[in-house]
């Protein structure tokens, strides 16, 4: 069962249109909301006139920002609806509720808002300049969580410091030093399902929410804490989610739906993002400006790293603080460096606010580090893969936050690099001229990632038996497309030695009846929920054996469970069928014992710690997944266009649980990384308004533009994980931007340190910036 390419449990629902997503549940009688958003990136709100809008037939309420609590997960800095001031283009200023979407839209257009535009902040470096406009004047007074260090009277929401080793010594030991800067603007997750939430408040105070979310349990907690609602009365349903990639972790529309429902006496209200709102109003993929300085010996051993990461958190911090911290935790990339200085800042700008994106800061930091590694190799005149091999992080080394690595908590990076070298025929050629205008080139990168989750993140699982001995598996993991729930069924089938078709997976999460799974993020589903399922299975097995031991008149220790039976270990011919004891056992005379078997299990990550404020020392996550990646491109020297020919990943996944699903996850992540790196970005005008909030102008990779993909796995088990499997839902993405940039830099013979890598950028770098723009 383990390792098999089991077809996902909800597969047939998904190919027949039966699969239901949040917006498919909107029932007749539901009211519809339309958002009124800010056309300015930074402005004071002087007046809001809703009179005309209210007179539109069908309009039931218009909600504005007055009197609402501030919200946020690490730092409470965001009013759910803008109040007195807007801080990004697209920010919600009012919510119009009407009988139909058409009416709501019409009224939304009639809401008159008077703004006084303010000077804007368009990048982290601008935000840090002396005299830059302050985006949050009240930063010093915001409530914050533990380990969050905003710097009042600046635009710095948080700073993580890494101080490891002795920098003076590191530089003294370095013969060769390179330094370079990197930058890219925020972009979007662009899940095909736009975000959606409905809320209804019942007469007895129960709040029923449907949400397209990765964090249904967080919605419940936050609504309770922001608005003083009884946490047990908030019930959140999350059906299948149509793509998330981190973008559906923040709690945003749910708050609006709740407020809107409250404004109309508890009636059910649906808040559904248009694509345009989904791109700029809801949280986005973070931008970064970085400077990296690396020093090494003449023979290529890294001795010192000085790193500055300025993450573009946008107008509100949400989870951007956490992303910037994750960037610090793994700041060096997967390399062994004894002396490390890093400042990773989450900076406020007047951009749409950022939240997690697949890779959680790692695709971003990897772009800066892996480009610098190539620059260093060039300066050393050393093979680029060899330089990486020499410095690959291994058991016995320590991470930037000073965690000592061993075989279990870090995989085998050298093995990944070796296999990559073969797969891409690295030693044959790295750059060749095909003809006068065509060049082919290869670029490589190495990746690593741990998951900086809450130190007390937990997951639970419940197993209930059916009268035929089949099992219902109930877990709080949201099915966002990763197939995790099917993998949980595989884990259970293996453990119970039963047919996977006898395991029925509850796809929907309902926070009232589903045990909590912290959040479906950070490639943590299989690890945490998998452990909880194994524990629940143990619990069920114990109960089955207890009843069977009475029926079979044998001691519990002599019994085994499997193949639908509980049997004697030394004589399997003596057994009782699970179906005959799953609901209690009935003796011939009518007496009965036992009852329905209900297995329960939970798992909490252990020994995680906060990071030290001054040095960053601490244990932020349970294990690292490592890997090596490559991209091969064909570049046209005449018009600066290129084709991605091939993309390769070798990842140490610990243990492959479902082969095709794992390859699919990695290829999908690679595709997303290449799409981002080659074409995706928000285009801002000088007032920091987003010019391309549509899929027509915000271009994604399309069918036919995809390269050949090669994915292979190395298996170094993480001994705490179910069957040794490491998280790998995000890792395929991490090295793609840097490998692509490395290949193109070699092909075009010019350093490319910005994203996205559009032909115009390459042309401009080649011809010098003075050519301006085409």
């Amino acid at each position: 069962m383990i390792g098999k390419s089991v077809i996902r449990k909800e597969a047939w629902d998904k190919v027949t249109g039966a699969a239901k997503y949040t917006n498919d549940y909107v029932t007749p009688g539901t009211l519809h909301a339309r958002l009124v958003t800010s056309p300015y990136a930074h402005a004071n709100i002087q007046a809001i006139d809703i009179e005309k809008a209210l007179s539109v037939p069908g309009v039931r309420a218009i909600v504005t920002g007055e009197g609402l609590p501030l919200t946020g997960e690490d730092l409470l800095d965001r009013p759910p609806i803008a109040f007195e001031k807007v801080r990004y283009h697209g920010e919600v200023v009012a919510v119009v509720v009407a009988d139909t979407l058409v009416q709501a839209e019409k009224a939304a257009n009639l809401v008159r808002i008077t703004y006084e535009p303010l000077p804007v902040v368009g990048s982290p470096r601008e935000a840090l300049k002396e005299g830059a406009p302050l985006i949050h004047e009240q930063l010093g007074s915001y409530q914050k969580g533990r380990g969050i260090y905003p710097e009042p009277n600046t635009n710095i929401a948080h700073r993580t410091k890494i101080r490891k080793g002795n920098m003076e010594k590191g530089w003294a030991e370095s013969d060769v030093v390179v330094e370079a800067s990197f930058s890219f603007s925020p972009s979007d997750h662009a899940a095909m399902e736009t975000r959606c939430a409905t809320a209804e408040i019942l007469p007895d105070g129960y709040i029923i929410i449907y949400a397209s979310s990765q964090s249904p349990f967080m919605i419940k907690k936050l609504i309770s804490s922001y608005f003083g609602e009884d946490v047990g009365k908030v019930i959140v349903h999350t059906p299948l989610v149509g793509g998330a990639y981190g973008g559906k972790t923040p709690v945003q529309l749910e708050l609006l739906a709740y407020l809107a429902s409250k404004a109309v006496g508890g009636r059910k209200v649906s808040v559904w993002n248009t694509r345009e709102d989904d791109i700029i109003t809801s949280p986005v993929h973070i931008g970064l400006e970085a400077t990296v300085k690396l020093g090494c010996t003449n023979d290529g051993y890294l001795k010192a790293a000085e790193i500055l990461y300025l993450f573009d958190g946008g107008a509100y911090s949400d989870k951007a603080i956490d992303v910037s911290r994750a960037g610090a935790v793994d700041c060096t990339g997967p390399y062994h460096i004894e002396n490390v200085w890093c400042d990773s800042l989450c900076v406020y700008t007047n951009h749409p606010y950022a939240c997690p994106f697949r890779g959680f800061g790692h695709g971003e930091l990897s772009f800066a580090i892996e480009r610098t590694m190539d620059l260093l190799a060039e300066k050393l005149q050393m093979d680029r893969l060899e330089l990486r091999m020499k410095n690959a992080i291994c058991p016995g080394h320590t991470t930037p936050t000073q965690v000592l690595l061993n075989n279990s908590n870090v995989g085998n990076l050298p093995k990944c690099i070796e296999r990559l070298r073969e797969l891409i025929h690295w030693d044959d050629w790295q750059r060749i001229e095909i003809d006068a205008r065509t060049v082919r080139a290869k670029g490589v990168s190495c990746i690593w990632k741990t998951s900086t989750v809450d130190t007390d993140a937990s997951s639970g699982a419940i197993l209930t038996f059916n009268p035929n001995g089949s099992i219902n598996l109930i877990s709080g993991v949201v099915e966002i497309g990763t197939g995790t729930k099917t993998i949980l069924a595989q884990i259970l089938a293996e453990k119970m030695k039963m047919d996977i078709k006898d395991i029925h997976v509850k796809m929907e999460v309902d926070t009232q009846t589903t045990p909590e799974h912290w959040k479906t993020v950070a490639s943590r589903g299989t690890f945490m929920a998998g452990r909880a399922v194994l524990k629940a299975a143990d619990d069920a097995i114990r109960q089955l054996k207890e009843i069977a031991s009475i029926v079979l008149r044998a001691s519990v220790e002599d019994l085994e469970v499997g193949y639908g039976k509980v049997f004697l270990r030394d004589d399997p011919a003596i057994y009782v069928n699970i179906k005959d004891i799953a609901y209690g056992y009935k003796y011939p005379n009518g007496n009965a014992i036992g009852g329905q078997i209900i297995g329960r299990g939970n798992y909490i990550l252990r020994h995680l710690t906060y990071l030290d404020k001054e040095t960053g020392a601490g244990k932020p996550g349970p294990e690292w997944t490592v890997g090596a990646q490559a991209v091969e491109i064909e570049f046209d020297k005449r018009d600066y266009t290129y084709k991605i020919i091939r993309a390769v990943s070798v990842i140490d996944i610990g243990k492959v649980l479902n082969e095709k699903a794992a390859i699919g996850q990695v290829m999908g992540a690679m595709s997303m990384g290449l799409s981002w790196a080659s074409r995706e970005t928000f285009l801002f005008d000088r007032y920091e308004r987003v010019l391309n909030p549509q899929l027509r102008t915000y271009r994604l990779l399309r069918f036919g533009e995809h390269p050949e993909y090669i994915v292979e796995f190395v298996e170094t088990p993480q001994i705490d994980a179910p069957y040794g499997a490491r998280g790998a839902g995000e890792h395929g993405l991490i090295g793609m931007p840097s490998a692509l940039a490395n290949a193109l830099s070699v092909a075009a013979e010019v350093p490319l340190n910005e994203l996205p890598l559009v032909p115009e950028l390459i042309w401009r770098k080649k011809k010098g910036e003075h050519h301006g723009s085409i």
Partner: protein
Amino acid sequence: MATTQQCEMLLTVNGEAHSVIARPADTLLFVLRNKLRLTGAKPGCLNGDCGACTVLIDGGPIKSCMMLAIETVGKTITTIEGLKHSPIQQAFVEHFAFQCGYCTPGFIMNAHALTEKYPDASDDVIQEWLESNICRCTSYREIEQAVKSVLLKKHRND
């Protein structure tokens, strides 16, 4: 206002006739989802950019967000709910050609029409058809393999 006035229209969807009360300005996607409760076709952009809303009109793929329901009177509409046991559905399942599944109904309708119309489609034709749909989860390779497996089978059966 004329655009808000409802009128009755007779639509033929998945082989059944439906009398629907809707505005002349309502899109086919809206009517399918909100009046007929056929939620298989998905809204992704309402702008013709993503293909999640693709259905078949008289056998050809159409983005239902770009067509008014009233324009389809007298035509045959097929949605994913009307597609039963087709080779393309089987192929999508076998080739893991979806993850979240949100783009899938649109992709399948488009690919189904393609394989029916051009059983010997070249790579260029396949690309020309399928580049109108976006999948954010898969790498497209899985979808390509699924589509090609159906084409290959058709070929063998000829």
